[in-house]
């Protein structure tokens, strides 16, 4: 006999995709719209951008069929009447050119969702505190220890705990931990599997509320912790991948700094802004080398005695000045990253001076390099061009 799914499960199925970061929903249905209003307005779990699109070939716009190079093209072309330029738009699928201002088109609604992890953490915390007013936060991560009857359990927002002990297999075997999961696809491996891995999709928390949270925690409190390493079934979830964290962090960084770049951060040579980048690290490198140079000059040292810095020295200084260097997808070492930044600085400086017709101001790179031998082999060192005061 087939059980009818509980209404809550149906609702969670509707809500789950609406919480996906970056999700694009064309023609949102009424039930999606009403949930989006709640998720954005009441809970703040997402921010919703609304725009419109038209179809490359649309039976409602008979003219679009006359002109189409591919009458079956399914292309959807984003178009916002208020902000789109007056030049034609091109279909990404078939390349056809459209003039939606000259030939008005039927527009359809599109919704783009961005997830807001901070609000998800707040939702988990509210739930936890509704169950146990004396719940204790555990460190800086969105994780709380709470009492359920006489048992202690831990609830955390997994997405905010990447790289912490709360996501490790060892910790989860030893403690009753409930993982609330926002990015459900990223952590699909947590859903079902080893008995000591308990996950609650954020959508279910939203739909079921505190009662759902209490029920899952109750199951945990009744389970046999700690699980012995040997007794459990084979590990079923994929190994934890720190790169996920890097990827997520990078996206968050992009979210944190919206709008135009701070181009007013400049380093000038001969009155020409040679490093005008929004990248604080490039500016920081030049500033740091300039500060070292200023110190040398203050001590009365001549150009021949200037101190040169290795890429490692610079990486360490950057760590203090602007925070740790992020390991990119190319897995470059910190030194390699510094080398790359310096090449960028030099290229930008050269280009900026050339564009201003002031190539005479600097007859070499802005940051000079040399190769020195030390006990481990050769090491590349950097200093600001000695021709700069």
């Amino acid at each position, binding site marked *: 006999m087939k059980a009818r799914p509980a209404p809550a499960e149906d609702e969670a199925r509707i809500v789950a995709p609406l919480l996906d*970061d970056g999700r694009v929903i064309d023609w949102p249905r009424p039930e999606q719209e009403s949930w989006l209003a709640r998720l954005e307005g009441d809970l703040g779990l997402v921010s919703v951008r609304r725009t419109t699109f038209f179809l490359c070939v649309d039976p409602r716009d008979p003219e679009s069929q006359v002109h189409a190079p591919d009458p079956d093209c399914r292309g959807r072309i984003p178009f916002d009447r208020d902000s789109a330029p007056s030049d034609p738009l091109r279909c990404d699928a078939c390349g056809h050119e459209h003039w939606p201002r000259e030939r008005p088109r039927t527009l359809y609604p599109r919704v*783009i969702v961005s997830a807001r992890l901070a609000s998800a953490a707040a939702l988990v915390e509210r739930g936890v505190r509704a169950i146990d007013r004396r719940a204790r936060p555990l460190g800086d991560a969105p994780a709380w220890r709470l009492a359920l009857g006489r048992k202690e359990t831990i609830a955390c927002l997994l997405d905010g705990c990447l790289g912490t002990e709360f996501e490790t297999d060892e910790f989860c075997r030893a403690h009753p931990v409930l993982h609330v999961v926002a990015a459900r696809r990223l952590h699909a491996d947590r859903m079902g599997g080893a008995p000591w891995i308990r996950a609650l999709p954020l959508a279910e928390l939203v739909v079921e509320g505190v009662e759902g949270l209490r029920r899952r925690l109750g199951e945990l409190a009744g389970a046999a912790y700690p699980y012995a390493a040997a007794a459990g079934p084979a590990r079923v979830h994929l190994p934890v991948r720190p790169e996920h964290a*890097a990827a997520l962090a990078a996206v968050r960084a*992009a979210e944190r700094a919206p709008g135009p770049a701070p181009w007013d951060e400049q380093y000038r040579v001969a009155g020409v802004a040679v490093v005008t980048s929004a990248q604080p690290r490039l500016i920081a490198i030049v500033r740091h080398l300039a500060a070292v140079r200023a110190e040398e000059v203050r001590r009365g040292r001549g150009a021949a005695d200037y101190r040169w810095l290795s890429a490692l020295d610079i990486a360490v200084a950057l760590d203090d000045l602007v925070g740790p260097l992020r390991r*990119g*997808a190319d897995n470059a070492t910190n030194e390699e990253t510094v080398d790359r930044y310096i090449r960028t600085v030099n290229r930008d400086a050269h280009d900026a001076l050339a564009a201003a017709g002031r190539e005479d101001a600097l007859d070499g790179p802005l940051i000079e390099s040399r190769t020195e031998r030390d006990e481990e082999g050769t090491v590349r060192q950097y200093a600001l061009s000695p021709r700069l005061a």
Partner: protein
Amino acid sequence: MGRTPGSRRPDITREPDAEFWREDLRMGQYDDVRSARVDPAAFRKRLAQRITGAAAMKVVASELGVRKPVSHKDLLDALAEEATLATHLLLVAEFAQFKRDAPIADVVDLALPEAVRAGIRSEAGRYDRLAALLHLYLDDRDWLRYVFGLNEWHRKGSVPMVLAGQSGAPFRPFAEFVRDPAEVEHAVWEARKRHPARRLTFEQVIPRDDGRFLLVARHEVRRDHLRRPDDGRLEHGYREDLLFLHFAVDGTAVDLVGEPTALVAAVADEVARACFRSRDCRYVPDRQRATDEAIQAFLRAATDPEDPRRVALVEVMVTSSPLPGHSRLLLTGEEPAAVIADVLHIEGTYGSLFEDLDAVEWVKVLHAGNRWRLTFPRPGDARLVQYMDGGVDKRKCRQFEAYLNEHFGLVARPSDKAAPGLPAGATA
């Protein structure tokens, strides 16, 4: 037609010149606009539909000699009374339809004084298209000929070529040579002799703001059934096309626009042969090599949300993905942050998408509001960076090239798929 336009105002007391509108500007609506006047109510409605915007209304007011402030409605009523003037302006308004911003801006910058330009410029720095065209037309109708030619030019993909085989200096400075209609006409004739089936005529030379010259030729491509623009009936005729040759000031390079490229190249070759007095002159595809490292640095920047250089990956197609089955994989989206997150996830979990550039069929990056499709072909041993420029105007193309060059040391060229003698996939 070698005359450079300027201050030859059209006679707006006479009926608009049919040949100019129909033949030179390919305005099939000419008869339609003129016959619309038999129904004054419909004509008035059409005026209201097409002639809009405060900047255009100012031109209307000044043409009508109205000094005091009057409502747009009253202005249009007065204009409808002046049927001949109204027909001129309405034709310009019809001409404005489906014209890009770039060709209009090009000619406005060339033709109009700053005092006029300031009056038709929006806060965003763009020109009001209708007001711009009205000013141009009333200054000298031949400016619209430039707009027409440049609109076609901006719209079409170009093939970059460089001169090979010349020895010694030209007998006459190239910039001077290419401005001489007699010389250019002769070169076009020479090219035509070599392609006898082609009906090819010299159209005009348009000076560009970079000091270069754009040579325009008209090419009647093939016999076809054509729809008559005025009544929509089919008739036999030649489908025609414009060919463009955008020469470097000294003639050592040229960007070709038009089909077939071999014919456009033949015209370019004849121009160079005549100017350099050498039969060995010919233009060959301009292919600038790039290193894989520079391209990969660019791709890292395009997938790094922290990178200062403002370019973002929005699509990648690889023939062999790093996923366990190595299937062909397309990642695409409109939100760069979402695509980049997916790229980083795949790279972090399974391996690099860009390590083997031969497996990258194309990428699309978002830059200055346009999606640019880039390919990294390797004909022979040279890696190239090519982009599709069809549809994006040439101003934006130049800016994109300069950007890639300045920030990544890459020399990108429009895709040379159509380069003569180089069928797709050929190796050089």
